[in-house]
């Protein structure tokens, strides 16, 4: 279906199911229970899951397929965000122009950066992309303040012209033809509470389209060429293929994905700051992709989800919550356990993240996807495991 083979179609359906039901699946614990800490089904976090999912899916098209490791993709995300906020300031609070322009501008910018950086390969390419991104960040902070708002960034304001909005002057909210992004429907079933949020569903649909397009690219002759480039550039050249346009196309496509993610961020929360382009943000998407499993279809989405989940959930846990959890233990033991766990939670969540990175690379070189495959094999689900892996074209 959709021009995909049976396995890919099934994978797509699974992802569709999971994203559509996410507000329910991610809130498995009843409100007020001790485990409610682990619920992730609130709009802000779910939006971040899918938006960073898009970012990582796009990054994976470049890195996973061609092996070119860009360290500057946050710049495209940032450019997308700035383009989107300007659309909201000048045209309308409707998110459609904002999202379209974020893709267009990020695509143009990545065309320039890619055209120059792809003259080199290996670490030299990585450093070139890093240099461009850091320059963009520094300039957004300083000289480009008229366009970027400098350190404070940009927000949609009442005083913005917004020529297409009829009710200009009144403060509009980000919307899709009148449907407000931040409007939510609260659903209470017994002790469970679920939030169905418009913004999330918009972002999720965009993510599904992005994911579908990524599958198509992976399975296309173009995708095969990109994998061939990773494998042996010399052979590509002597087979009559020009590698540069292929890598440039992959670079621009992944730049457009990054821009789309940036545009969606603005659609969900109408503000931008330059820190979005800082190199740590570029590093984060690299880590997401490798953590999930570079070159696999679902890996980057898993990696993005995992990092964002840890960042949000672990950082919220504090000592008193720990005491609650371990209250069934004798007092002395309880204190000891809380003291041991303490460095890893709250502000220490990055420590947990660092340890997770190390553990995954050491024990699961293929990322979370490989972990899933190993589990699958352990339970003898031979057929299901190959779902997630890139199967050879048939």
């Amino acid at each position, binding site marked *: 279906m959709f021009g995909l083979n049976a396995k890919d179609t099934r994978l797509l359906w699974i992802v569709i199911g999971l994203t559509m039901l996410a507000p329910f699946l991610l809130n498995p614990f009843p409100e007020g229970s001790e485990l409610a800490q682990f619920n992730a089904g609130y709009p802000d976090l779910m939006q971040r899951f899918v938006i960073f999912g898009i970012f990582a899916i796009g990054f994976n098209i470049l890195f996973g397929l061609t092996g070119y490791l860009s360290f500057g993709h946050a710049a495209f995300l940032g450019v997308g965000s700035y383009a989107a906020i300007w659309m909201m300031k000048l045209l309308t609070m409707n998110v459609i122009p904002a999202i379209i322009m974020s893709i267009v501008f990020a695509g143009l910018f990545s065309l320039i950066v890619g055209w120059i950086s792809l003259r080199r390969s290996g670490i030299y390419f990585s*450093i070139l992309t890093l240099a461009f991104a850091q320059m963009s960040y520094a300039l957004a902070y300083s*000289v480009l303040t008229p366009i970027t708002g400098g350190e404070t960034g940009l927000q949609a304001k009442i005083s913005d012209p917004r020529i297409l909005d009829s009710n200009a002057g009144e403060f509009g909210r980000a919307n899709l033809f009148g449907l407000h992004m931040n409007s939510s429907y609260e659903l209470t079933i017994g002790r469970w509470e679920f939030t169905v949020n418009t913004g999330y569903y918009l972002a999720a649909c965009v993510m599904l389209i992005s994911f579908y397009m990524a599958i198509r690219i992976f399975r296309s002759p173009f995708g095969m060429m990109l994998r061939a480039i990773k494998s042996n550039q010399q052979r590509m050249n002597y087979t009559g293929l020009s590698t540069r346009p292929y890598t440039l196309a992959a670079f621009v496509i992944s730049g457009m994905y990054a821009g789309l993610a940036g545009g969606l961020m603005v659609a969900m929360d109408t503000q931008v700051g330059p820190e979005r382009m800082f190199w740590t943000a570029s590093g984060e998407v690299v880590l997401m992709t490798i953590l999930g499993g570079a070159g696999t279809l679902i890996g980057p989405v898993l990696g993005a989800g995992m990092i964002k989940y840890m960042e949000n959930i672990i950082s919220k846990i504090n000592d008193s919550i720990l005491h609650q959890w371990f209250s069934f233990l004798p007092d002395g033991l309880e204190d000891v356990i809380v003291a041991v766990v303490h460095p890893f939670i709250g502000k220490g969540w990055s420590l947990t993240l660092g340890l997770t990175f190390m553990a995954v690379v*050491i024990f699961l070189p293929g990322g979370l996807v490989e972990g899933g495959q190993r589990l699958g094999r352990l339970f003898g689900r031979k057929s299901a495991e190959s779902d997630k892996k890139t199967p050879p074209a048939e």
Partner: protein
Amino acid sequence: MDAIILQILNGLDKGSAYALIALGLTLIFGTLGVVNFAHGALFMLGAFCAVTLSRIISLSYIVLDDTKKDFLGNPTKIEVPYIYDWLGADTGAAIIDWSVPLSILFAIPVMILIGVIMERGLIKHFYKRPHADQILVTFGLAIVLQEVIKYYFGANPIPTPAPEAFSGSFDFGVLVGFDPNSIIYPYWRLVYFAFSMVLIAGVFAFLQFTTFGMVVRAGMADRETVGLLGINIDKRFTVMFGIAAAVAGLAGVMYTPINPPNYHMGMDFLVLSFVVVVVGGMGSLPGAVAAGFLLGVLESLASMGWVIDLIPGINQVIIYLVAIVILLTRPRGLLGRKGVMEE
């Protein structure tokens, strides 16, 4: 003119730090073939060696001074370092004053130990893994190290002054015939520059004139052949890793009076050091040093008022701009060898 000289001098100490970190980075890359994202963390650990030592030697107990009263009429509390009791107040005070330079002695064994443990315990298993894996695991390690430091030392920068004798500035301008007060340069920065020159010279001499260094250099050029000669190259590379860690650590120790250390200083320097390594040419030691000083000085020159007036924002981007130009015109950096990291 005097302003330019001042900026060059200012650029030298930052350049020294870049050069020292980049030297270790490229040494590790050249010998072990490993991209070490935790190298900035080693710089940071060195700085915290200095902090730790200064805290240890100024460990104090509290005595009540009955001669002075505070506003509530209670005797004031005075902290007396234990070291005063052991070595006498004068010697004790001098040692506390000189804690940063003294930390060198403390940091060398500690950093070598950390380096060797890191290599044997972790890096060793990543020699044959893809660079992406190396980056991820060392990045993870860097995060862990800096979080541990943050846990014990807090998130704020910790002022760690230079010895009293070096805390002032001297009038460099007068020395070279300019008007007095035109080029004022803190002594410690000069010390830092001299120290880094000695350290760099030491590393080069070690590689040049010892058999150990010869084998390592041969190994950098052609690992397989050296391995075939029956020389245990791995052991030497472990030692090399320890040395690179110590160099980064010492760079950190001596940098503390210039910039109070905080837990993320390693990451701040890491990215620029990578740019430095690549600009110098991956795997080239002289290249790393030259590029370190070059970029440090250029960064400093670009932040002069009239330069910024001429090209707004140039001080922010000069390093990256230079890196782009050099990489596009000299594909392998200033002094790089062919075929390194281009797979």
